[in-house]
């Protein structure tokens, strides 16, 4: 029997009523997941939990900044390869298309007994599961003389945004033939190749605008990520411009005087013009306030990134002590997907699949001279353990290096879409 328009509308209304009633009832009783930190770990986790549970889990994302600037690719901004605006992303799509409750505030306390979070604005949120992805904070006094109070004299630029713009402005205004010093961090720290890609990008910029300038790296580490590849590149592109002082020459005993613009290396005082201090690091403060850290970092299970101290709290990305993965945006994004699958399975009846992880870190040495390192990982009882890996080779041809750089551009577009749900 054909329906007339009136009958059709009537049946549609009845149909939608039967659908919407249980949806409303479910939303009221749906479990709550609160994600703290909207970077590569947190934004990805929020999106995958919301999408994977199809409304079966209420997801709240707590992130203080309204426009998030990715730390990855911020060195390319220093080198003049990216505009700062191209690194900024908003959370509008996560709210509009994924139904995520995006709260722009700081989480200042976690009560794990009551399962509540206090925000700086005074509000409180309850959770069934908490995902912490707060990134890093700096260890006070790890570089004597440096503090957040003096960070404008000697920027860290290791959380992207205003600090990155400040460092670039200082480099652009540096006197002719001046010295740019970097105090590199000890292990473990965010983005292992990051400081050395930064040196490459600063060298690229100075070579064009201030070719007699010098770069001094003060580095407490014996060796660093992709060292042979970077040093080969520096020799080819920036001959004689870059000097690195390692632990053999006192780089484990470094202090700075931001007012005098000096760096003291084992008692030898160097006058510098621009100084980038990247202090030693630890998990973002909220992880310590939540009481899920052991020392500087938060130990987690490799199977679902659940805290080893509280199974209702998951810790992702830089803040986690997980095993073999480097602290990178790619790693955080990879871990977030494993964590999200586990949470959706536990709280919304989704299927649980075995943990699997991957990472690739691209770095740019000079125009069209890109390199990369990557690995796959699996979960073991002890840690996230490396399975297989690769690294670029020193003798690669120019076409390979250019392809590697172009690939990194494709990756940036993809991972930011994966995080924020929009290109």
């Amino acid at each position, binding site marked *: 029997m054909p329906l007339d328009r009136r009958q059709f509308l009537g049946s549609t209304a009845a149909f939608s009523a039967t659908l919407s009633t249980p949806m409303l009832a479910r939303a009221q009783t749906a479990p709550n997941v609160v994600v703290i930190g909207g970077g590569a770990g947190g934004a990805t986790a929020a999106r995958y939990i919301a999408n994977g549970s199809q409304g079966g889990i209420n997801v709240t994302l707590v992130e203080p900044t309204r426009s998030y600037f990715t730390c990855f690719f911020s060195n390319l901004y220093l080198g003049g390869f990216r505009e700062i605006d191209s690194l900024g992303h908003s959370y509008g799509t996560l709210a509009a298309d994924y139904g995520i409750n995006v709260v722009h505030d700081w989480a200042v306390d976690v009560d794990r007994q009551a399962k509540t979070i206090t925000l700086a604005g005074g509000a409180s949120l309850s959770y069934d599961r908490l995902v912490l992805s707060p990134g890093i904070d700096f260890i006070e006094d790890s570089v004597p003389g440096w503090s957040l109070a003096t960070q404008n004299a000697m920027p860290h630029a290791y959380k992207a945004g205003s600090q990155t713009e400040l460092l670039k402005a200082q480099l652009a205004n540096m006197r002719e033939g001046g010295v740019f010093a970097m105090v590199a961090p000890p292990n473990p720290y965010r983005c292992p190749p990051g400081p050395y890609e930064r040196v490459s990008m600063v060298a690229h910029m100075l070579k064009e605008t201030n070719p007699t300038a010098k770069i001094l790296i003060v580095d407490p580490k014996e060796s660093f990520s992709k060292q042979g590849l970077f040093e080969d590149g520096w020799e080819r592109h920036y001959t004689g411009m870059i000097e690195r002082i390692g632990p053999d020459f006192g780089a484990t005993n470094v202090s700075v005087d931001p007012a005098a613009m000096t760096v003291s290396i084992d008692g030898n005082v160097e006058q510098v013009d621009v100084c980038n201090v990247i202090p030693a690091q630890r998990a973002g403060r909220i992880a310590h306030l939540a009481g899920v850290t052991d020392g500087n970092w938060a130990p987690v299970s490799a199977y679902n990134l659940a805290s080893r101290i509280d199974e209702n709290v998951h810790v992702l990305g830089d803040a986690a002590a997980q095993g073999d993965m480097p602290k990178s945006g790619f790693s955080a994004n990879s871990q977030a997907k494993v964590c999200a699958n586990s949470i959706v399975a536990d709280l919304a009846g989704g299927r649980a*699949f075995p943990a*699997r992880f991957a990472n690739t870190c691209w770095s740019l040495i000079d125009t069209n001279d890109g390199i*990369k390192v990557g*690995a*796959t990982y699996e979960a073991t009882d002890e840690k996230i353990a490396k399975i297989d890996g*690769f690294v670029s080779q020193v003798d690669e041809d120019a076409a390979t290096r250019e392809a590697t750089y172009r690939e*990194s551009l*494709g*990756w940036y577009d*993809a991972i930011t879409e994966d995080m924020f749900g929009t290109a």
Partner: protein
Amino acid sequence: MGKQGLFAFAVIFWAMQSSPALSEGDPMAGQAAFRLCAACHMIGDGAINRAGPHLDDLMGRPVGGLSDYRYSDTLTEAGNEGELWTEDRLNSFLEDPQGYYRGTRMVFRGISDPNTRADLVAYIVAEADNYDRAATATSTGDMPPEIAAILAIQGDYAYGEYLSSECTACHATQSGGDIPSIVGLAPSTFVHSLISYKIGQREHQVMTMIANRLGDEEIAALAAYFTTVE
């Protein structure tokens, strides 16, 4: 002669005899008729790709089989599934290109006259120096057994969706040109790509590492997912 041998003989016999009109084609007349094609295709020694792929040594070649020409998904998929250019296939394609390979990029409405088609096919055969008619007719195609085995698996969509998150870290929905989009590929194309990294036919540090870790079940699951999402 066993049953199988009899069958093979019959196939060869059939292939050689199937189309009297085709076997009577005149290559000289076909050469004249080729001007219909020459706006887009070159043929003969030294032929190169133009708007269309070159047609030298076409016969016996996998459909969509030139690595340096960008075919429609339809032709690429047909080649992945083992289809080769035979006289019968070429004849049918030329009669109604869009009907035979829906989605082909070849902008040509077809040739309705069977004699002209027979002449054209005879000419293209004459320009195929190493064409082994019998071997081509009986070939099951050169689809690697690894690919056929995976295409036979019913992929687990939910598992594929989970695994796909490993891909979407680098492959955006829209291709920016630097890393291709892998959404909506034909199953055979998707599987063929991953297998080509696994067996070393294609090399790429990241893709080789990722593909090596994927078993048949995983690839089938990924294909089930990626070939259906938009």
